[in-house]
């Protein structure tokens, strides 16, 4: 009997009911008896020597319990510097600044009070003597010979970098025409709707920490390093997370500070970040540009790439370190194209801005922008159709599997298929939209298909210098046949509990609603690295598949015994087992589980009691360090997509509005189309924000100018158009279930797609190429005015 498969079916999410009913439990909802509130006092100076901090007046404020500075944290160790390799400069991070501040937002003191109102009163009464130094606010300033040094013991402001050289690349540039550009992506970031938050209590020699983090076990590791407690004395619990997007895949000073306070004061302490704090002290991202050149054949084929990615890593005070996305940018430039040779280096510098760190896409959106812009320039300069340039470089089925010039192993995909479908979709849609706006003389409509590849399920070693790629899952069947799945990956909206329940149900024939997924608790989940890098589904399902296999095999032994049949003759059917093709022989999982757990006297000889298994999984094919030639395959899977924005540009105001967003996407096997499309849509919305308006502005003194949602604009329902998604499924040949990961994919494409669409819309004006984001009205107007001056 064939069971209807749940794979590819729309399974309603198991997470939704409680979230819709106001029953979600986020960090700010946590209450502990006698709990105190902490308010962090932050530097208002971008760069300076930290002198005396006056806290006496704050201590006298009504409701304030105590105030602490770095001087008090004598028993706290700085964050371990796993990267202490020759190529990365040492950065010592301490929960409260000791002697120097490097960005506005640096934690310098903490006020503990009865409630947050009183804590903020206290924070207002803390005065810090900071001897201001000149602020470094850009890559150019950081690299200037007379630049102020953020770290006086470094020779310059370079955090890390490398400059590869290749005789083959140089030969290609000797031989072929060279087309070059500088393409940049502004500073913006994850900005989840829920800010960060940490709570802690210390009872009976054990520390319990609640944190809105994407990696509970890594947070526990870091707490152990910084507070000197054994891992067994620390429990990290992650409540519901109100969005993470990488911003919460960082370990922050407050995650050590608040637990230290709870230990010091012997009372529970909570800190909930406010939005201003979030915008200045949680990691930023992007803020990078590339000087890139291509050696090209006359028909548009690209023979080699050469250049450097320059990244402003902010103050550098981040764990994991903030330089890593720039390395990803350099490595991901090739995308879906077969470019035989590349030598692209990185220069990552520190500046007096908020530390850079993770944000969904992690360097790949920058890479896609640089590459797609460069290809459009190649097309323009050679006079070859931009679609044909892509066709001549795109990976075709016959090319796969393909190892590209930096070592990325693209084992499967639908690069050409997706692109040709997108050309078809975009051509039809733009014609319809042009018709619609034909009568408006101020409006121009355009579109332009672009491509990307997103590497997912990566090694964490290049980013952290410590953790790698493994994860685990345990599965326990209760005596009544219900299931508890316990994992270290972390939900933050992506429906992981639904996905894992679906896979367990698919494998065992149990009902989705009979599966409980436990996560975000280091006491009750096996070790793992959490959710980031589009890895959640892949690593947890890989581990789950192993645990499921053990349960299924053991269950079939017990079922066979109960049915007096050979286990080999059984099949899994809804709710249990039966002899193949014989519904009368059914035995339920409940009977099997009761036998395994309670009526153990009925177990077959040699079968131990219990129905529980743990699976450990390390995704295959990943390199953790580069080989002798500097090449590595950092990811277990590479999704591909082609996409196009249909834009409407007002030539009088420069305003760009998206009319439609089209995407043909291939992330391998689709487990739940509802969730996959939700991930893609959400990523696209964030990508649109980054392409058009999201930006952390700073003035020349390093003062942040985007400290509220009045200054930092997030896309609303009127900026994000209807998104048309078509899914192609080219299963991963190596990963369990064939899924390739989808968390980050959508965000990669919007910037290059919108830039190219705006140029298409304005083709008649002969504007110069759009080379950076955000593509704001002044930028568009400037391009139009410059073009008018030239003509």
């Amino acid at each position, binding site marked *: 009997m064939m069971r209807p498969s749940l794979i590819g079916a729309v399974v309603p999410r198991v997470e939704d009911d409680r979230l819709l009913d*106001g029953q979600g439990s986020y960090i700010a909802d946590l209450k502990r008896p006698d709990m105190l509130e902490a308010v962090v006092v932050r530097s208002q100076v971008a760069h300076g020597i930290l002198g005396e901090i006056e806290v006496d007046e704050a201590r006298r404020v009504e409701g304030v319990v105590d105030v602490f500075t770095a001087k008090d944290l004598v028993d706290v160790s700085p964050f371990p510097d796993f990267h202490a390799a020759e190529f990365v400069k040492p950065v010592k991070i301490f929960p409260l600044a000791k002697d120097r501040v490097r960005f506005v937002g640096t934690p310098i003191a903490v006020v503990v009070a009865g409630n947050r109102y009183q804590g903020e009163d206290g924070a207002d009464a803390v005065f810090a003597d900071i001897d201001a130094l000149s602020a470094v606010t850009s890559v150019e300033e950081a690299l200037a010979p007379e630049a102020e040094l953020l770290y006086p013991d470094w020779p310059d402001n370079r955090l890390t970098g490398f400059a590869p050289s290749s005789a083959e690349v140089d030969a290609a540039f000797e031989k072929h025409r060279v087309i070059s550009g500088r393409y940049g992506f502004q500073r913006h970031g994850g900005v989840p709707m829920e800010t960060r938050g940490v709570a802690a209590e210390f009872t009976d020699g054990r520390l319990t920490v609640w944190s809105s983090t994407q990696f509970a076990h890594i947070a526990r590791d870091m707490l152990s390093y910084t507070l000197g407690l054994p891992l067994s004395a620390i429990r990290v619990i992650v409540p519901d997370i109100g969005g993470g997007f990488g911003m919460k895949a960082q370990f922050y000073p407050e995650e050590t500070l608040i637990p230290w306070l709870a230990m010091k004061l012997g009372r529970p302490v909570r800190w909930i970040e406010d939005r201003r704090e979030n915008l200045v002290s949680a990691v930023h991202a992007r803020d990078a540009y590339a000087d890139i050149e291509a050696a090209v054949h006359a028909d548009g084929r690209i023979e080699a790439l050469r250049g450097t990615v320059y990244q402003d890593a902010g103050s550098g005070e981040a764990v994991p370190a903030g330089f890593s996305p720039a390395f990803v940018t350099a490595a991901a430039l090739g995308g879906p194209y077969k470019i035989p040779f590349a030598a692209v280096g990185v220069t990552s510098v520190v500046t007096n801005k908020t530390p850079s760190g993770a944000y969904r896409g992690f360097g790949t959106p920058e890479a896609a922008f640089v590459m797609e812009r460069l290809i459009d320039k190649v097309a323009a300069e050679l006079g070859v159709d931009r679609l044909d340039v892509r066709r001549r470089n795109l990976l075709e089925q016959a090319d796969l599997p393909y190892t590209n010039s930096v070592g990325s192993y693209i084992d499967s995909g639908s690069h050409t298929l997706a692109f040709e479908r997108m050309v078809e979709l975009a051509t039809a849609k733009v014609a319809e939209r042009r018709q619609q706006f034909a009568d408006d003389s101020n409006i121009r409509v355009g579109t332009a298909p672009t491509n990307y590849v997103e590497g997912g399920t990566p090694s964490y070693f290049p980013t952290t210098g410590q953790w790698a790629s493994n994860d685990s899952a345990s599965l326990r069947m209760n005596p009544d046949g219900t299931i508890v799945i316990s994992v270290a990956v972390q939900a933050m909206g992506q429906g992981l509990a639904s996905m894992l329940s679906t896979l367990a149900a698919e494998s065992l024939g149990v009902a989705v609603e009979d599966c409980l997924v436990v996560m975000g608790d280091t006491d009750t989940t096996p070790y793992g690295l959490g959710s980031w890098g589009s890895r959640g589904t892949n690593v947890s399902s890989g581990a789950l598949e192993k645990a499921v296999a053990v349960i299924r095999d053991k269950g079939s032994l017990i079922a066979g015994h109960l049915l007096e049949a050979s286990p080999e003759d059984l099949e899994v059917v809804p709710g249990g087992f039966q002899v193949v093709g014989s519904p009368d022989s059914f035995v339920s999982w409940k009977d099997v589980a009761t036998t395994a757990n309670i009526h153990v006297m009925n177990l077959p000889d040699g079968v131990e009691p219990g129905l529980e298994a743990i699976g450990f999984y390390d995704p295959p094919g990943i390199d953790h360090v580069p080989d002798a030639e500097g090449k590595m395959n950092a990811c277990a899977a590479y999704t591909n997509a082609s996409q196009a924005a249909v834009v409407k540009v007002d030539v009088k105001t420069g305003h760009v509005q998206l009319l439609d967003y089209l995407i043909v996407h291939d992330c391998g096997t689709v487990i739940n189309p509802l969730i996959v499309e939700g991930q893609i*849509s959400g990523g696209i*919305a964030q990508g649109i924000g980054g392409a058009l308006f999201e930006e952390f502005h700073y003035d020349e003194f390093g003062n942040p100018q985007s400290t509220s949602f009045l200054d930092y604009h997030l896309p609303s329902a009127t900026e*994000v158009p209807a998104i048309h998604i078509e899914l192609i499924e080219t299963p991963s040949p190596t990963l369990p279930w064939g899924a390739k990961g989808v968390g980050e994919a959508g965000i990669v494409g919007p910037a290059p797609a919108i830039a190219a669409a705006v140029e298409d819309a304005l083709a008649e004006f002969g504007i110069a190429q759009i080379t950076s984001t955000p593509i704001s009205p002044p930028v568009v107007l400037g391009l139009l005015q410059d073009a008018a001056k030239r003509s």
Partner: protein
Amino acid sequence: MRAIQDPTAETPLQATVNGASVEATVESRMLLADFLREDLGLTGTHLGCEHGVCGACTVLVDGAPVRSCIMFASQIDGRDVVTVEGLSEGEGLTDLQQAFKDNHGLQCGFCTPGFLMTISGVEPSDYPDDDSIREMLSGNICRCTGYGGIVDAVKQVWGRAQ
């Protein structure tokens, strides 16, 4: 209205919250969101920005959507407040909540109560088409979904063609 001299002065209030009568004394500076969350334990109302932009804290006051992060608790004196906890009255999901579930109109769920309250407080006939529905939703920010599922949920519950 009399000027408040002391932000910590105790102020009495009497109101209806989710159908129940509430009497309390609050500091005059206490925000409505904090009163609902901390004093009444109604933590379904979420704080996303605390400056009135993101809409996560939206509740209904006398039937109209308001931002509870920029309203003082004392301002609900004599008024009727409904929070997300007051929608379903413990009888399973409402049609609107079910529509959000059916259309994947939520992911992390943090902004969701604010959307539900905004939609609950508007007149469907004021928003006759997709563009105007998007305008209506534009005061609430969702960072996860890209809005398509939310628009579809509104259309489902308002009986519009999907």
